């Protein structure tokens, strides 16, 4: 029988902040989205104060209880590196690890003895080496492991590990748990089934598979089979190939001038091109959008424009194309709130120029390699096209950005000699 586990970091971003900042331990803490807009990670203490996931922070601050909450701007360089550390600690102890998201890893534990103690040791090791507290769910399928993980998090008495391998344990759990707790059952699906009187996981598992297929298509049938203990979703050890690269941001301050909007979109194109080259791809399709704020009473304006382009991974070429499209949708007298670019139609990057190409592919590849090498060595953004602006007036607010402790030499953790 297969055995899967899902291990995930508790309030991962907050825990990464706390790893290096002992003064934050035990306090309510939230991490805010890009632009310091919404709460995207909350410690248990912050949840206890009623702060909701995705809650706009300026609204939360109106509640007196939230004034005492510590908050940080999101520090993705740190979270990414801590996720890498968590993965490596696991990969050294478990035969196969799938990094499912920045804070969740699926493990294949098939054939390992004394699983509960093994998982407790895993938790201790991750905690000791990366300072991230975790929970582990164990089950015969990924869907069950994910559910077990959720229960491990909710039930304090389980001390961070929940094992749902035994059918009897599962039966009790299924009878008590609402269907919407299941991975792969969205809110709408749960609602639809609730109307038919199917509210608990047990109700759902009891249905005839043909009926589930009829109600929810093959995807729903797969979820049911997984909940019944038949493993249908194997570990994925390679990330799926990219279908699209999107770089979008809401602005820290509303953007009104053409120059600022152009700089922002040029910066997005620069970042998208970096991602493209990191994957060894070139893009043949590009789209650009911009819109005003739908919530602040401004006149609504939203536009996008897309085009097939001569396939490239060249930052300057992509900026040129993006700015050309942006010019077509630009209207003055609006206050732009958000913009973005999307690349698609990928192919492996080629270094030869095509018969009809207008660009020198060899020269471009060399220039881009040099650009990427400088930025890899001296930090991203060290060398960048002037079109992206020298002063990023449009850049998001990041009022409380913690140091990038593990990725920047000048921002290392500082310890006071005693």
């Amino acid at each position, binding site marked *: 029988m297969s055995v899967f586990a899902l291990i995930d970091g508790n309030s991962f971003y907050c825990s990464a902040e706390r790893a290096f900042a002992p003064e934050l331990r035990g306090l309510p803490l939230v991490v805010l989205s890009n632009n310091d807009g919404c709460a995207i990670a909350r410690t248990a203490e912050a949840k206890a104060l009623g702060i909701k996931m995705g809650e706009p922070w300026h609204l939360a601050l109106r509640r007196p209880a939230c004034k005492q909450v510590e908050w940080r701007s999101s520090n993705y360089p740190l979270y990414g590196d801590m996720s890498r550390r968590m993965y490596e600690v696991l990969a050294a102890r478990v035969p196969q690890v799938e990094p499912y998201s920045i804070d969740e890893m699926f493990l294949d534990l098939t054939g390992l003895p004394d699983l509960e103690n093994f998982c407790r040791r895993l938790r201790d090791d991750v905690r000791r080496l990366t300072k991230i507290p975790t929970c582990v769910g164990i089950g015969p399928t990924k869907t069950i492991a994910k559910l077990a993980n959720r229960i491990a998090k909710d039930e304090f008495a389980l001390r961070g590990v929940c094992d749902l391998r035994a059918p009897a344990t599962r039966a009790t759990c299924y009878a008590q748990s609402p269907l919407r707790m299941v991975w792969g059952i969205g809110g709408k699906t749960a609602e639809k089934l609730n109307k038919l009187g199917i509210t608990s996981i047990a109700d759902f598992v009891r249905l005839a598979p043909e009926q589930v297929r009829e109600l929810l298509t093959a995807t729903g049938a797969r979820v049911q089979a997984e909940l019944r203990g038949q493993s249908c979703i194997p570990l994925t050890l390679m990330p799926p190939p990219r279908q699209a690269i999107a770089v979008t941001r809401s602005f820290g301050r509303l953007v009104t001038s053409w120059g600022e909007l152009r700089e922002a979109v040029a910066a997005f194109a620069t970042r998208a091109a970096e991602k493209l080259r990191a994957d060894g791809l070139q893009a043949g399709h590009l789209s650009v959008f911009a819109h005003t704020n739908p919530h602040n009473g401004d006149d609504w304006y939203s536009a996008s424009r897309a085009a097939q382009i001569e396939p490239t991974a060249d930052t300057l070429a992509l900026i040129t194309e993006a700015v050309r499209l942006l010019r077509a949708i630009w209207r003055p007298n609006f206050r732009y709130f958000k913009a973005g670019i999307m690349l698609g139609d990928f192919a492996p990057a080629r270094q030869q120029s095509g018969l009809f190409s207008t660009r020198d592919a060899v020269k471009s590849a060399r220039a881009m390699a040099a650009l990427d090498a400088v930025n890899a060595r001296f930090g991203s953004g060290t060398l960048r096209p002037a079109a992206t602006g020298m002063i990023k007036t449009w850049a998001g607010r990041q009022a409380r950005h913690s140091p990038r402790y593990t990725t920047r030499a000048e921002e290392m953790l500082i310890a006071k*000699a005693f």
Partner: protein
Amino acid sequence: MNYNGGNTTGFASPAGDNLEGRIDLAAMLDLSRPSRYPVRVAGDALASRGIFAGDILIADAASPPAHGKVAVVMLNGAVLVGQLAYRQQQWWLASGHPDTAPIAVTGDDAEIWAVVTGLIRTQV
């Protein structure tokens, strides 16, 4: 061109078959290990241990604490580096100053965060 000591244009380099990579300090210090963190020292209290302000310590959270080792300790909301001592069945952080009393590393807000395994000084 990217000349590496071997790819000469005229005479073949006698070193061509014996080229080696350069000394890689990051690899020597094993900085890519998931348990290793670089930590910058503030203050000269550990001068007696040869550790000065501005030094970069390699702190390894996987290295077991031991009496006499230098460690990074999180204590009452502060990040400290000092010498570990094990006495009366518990850990203490001893100061580099003879007249500063050691403090007990106990309580909810106390953690031996990582043991120092190496030191880098970029300016001597």
